[in-house]
């Protein structure tokens, strides 16, 4: 009895060990590639949404809505912040990279990661989606409700209101975060 139990346990253990070894080997090959492609995607997005100035060193976020941010300097003074924002969409987490002026105004934004519905919420990945937010956040508030949008923009988000709410709340949070930083490193 004891013998069979030990034999079963040993056999299962051997299978697990071989599987773990194989996985460790594959991970050793793919992990650098994964890290590199993620870094590249972020670099590409940074260069698109940064309009002028030099992107500074990455700073850790507040652990809530801001993952991390980069101050953008122009001749030594901080003019903008590029924030990596986290929010909830319809299908899961949303990660948004957005460029704010130090007064909280949204310059540009890009949806980096999402799991939204194709044809509806997935549209938020396209660059025109963020146009309705550009220029808001300072003197005009970030539109967080459908009623705050122009009729044409409101039509576009119909059927994907949860995505819109996720994106707009993140941008509103980012705008406030940039205001609080207020030009400091």
């Amino acid at each position, binding site marked *: 009895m004891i013998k069979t139990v030990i034999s079963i346990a040993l056999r299962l253990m051997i299978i697990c060990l071989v599987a773990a070894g*194989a996985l460790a080997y594959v991970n050793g090959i793919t992990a650098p590639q994964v890290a590199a*492609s993620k870094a590249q995607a972020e670099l590409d997005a940074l260069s698109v949404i940064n309009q002028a100035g030099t992107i500074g060193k990455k700073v850790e976020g507040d652990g809530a809505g801001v993952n991390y941010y980069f101050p953008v300097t122009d001749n030594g003074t901080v003019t903008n912040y590029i924030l990596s924002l986290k929010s909830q969409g319809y299908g899961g987490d949303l990660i948004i990279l957005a460029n704010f002026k130090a007064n909280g105004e949204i310059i540009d934004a890009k949806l980096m990661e999402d*799991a939204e519905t*194709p*044809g509806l919420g997935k549209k938020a990945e396209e660059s025109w989606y963020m146009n309705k937010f550009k220029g808001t956040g300072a003197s005009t508030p970030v539109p967080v409700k459908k009623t705050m949008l122009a009729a044409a923009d409101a039509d576009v988000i119909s059927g994907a209101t949860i995505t819109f709410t996720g994106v707009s709340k993140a941008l509103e949070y980012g705008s406030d975060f940039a205001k609080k930083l207020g030009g400091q490193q």
Partner: protein
Amino acid sequence: MIKEFTKGLFKENPIFVIALGLCPTLATSTMVINALGMGAGVIFVLVCSNIFISLLKDFIPDTVRIPAYIVVIAAFVTIVQMVMEAYCPALYAALGVFVPLIVVNCIILGRAEAFANKNKVLPSILDGLGMGIGFTISLTLIALIREVLGSGTITLPGCVITVPGISLAPIRVIAFPAGALLVLGLLRAYFQHRSIKK
């Protein structure tokens, strides 16, 4: 021998006839490219796990065969997941949680339990290949119908074809899981009809 391969395509098609693996079918048949990617992942896992389970059938004690199968299957799924994340990050992001969920895909455990642990390596490879390709064809067919009607596009690796007319006013519900169920139901009815007629 060749029957082991062809049975998965039509006669015992995993989705339309034996109705296995329906959850990932409904969830990943949103775009043609997702269906092809998911299909490739399933074929790889199915063939590899069939090979190993058929090789190990005398080594694996009968009482703990299910955990042993799951370990083998999970190892291959994790390999697929890591390779996909490294070399096709867009596909990896689109398939999301359904890549790790291949582990519990009934097709794979089903074939291990029903076929690979009773047969030699070569028939097991053919069985896995046939079932995997049958799954991929069905998934792609559903995805093609859903993507054309639901978004008016056909997304293939490297290019997107826009279907004129439909893309302006697509039938939105087809892009949702409910639409997937409708399409799957109609296709299943068709396959049923065919087999009854024979």
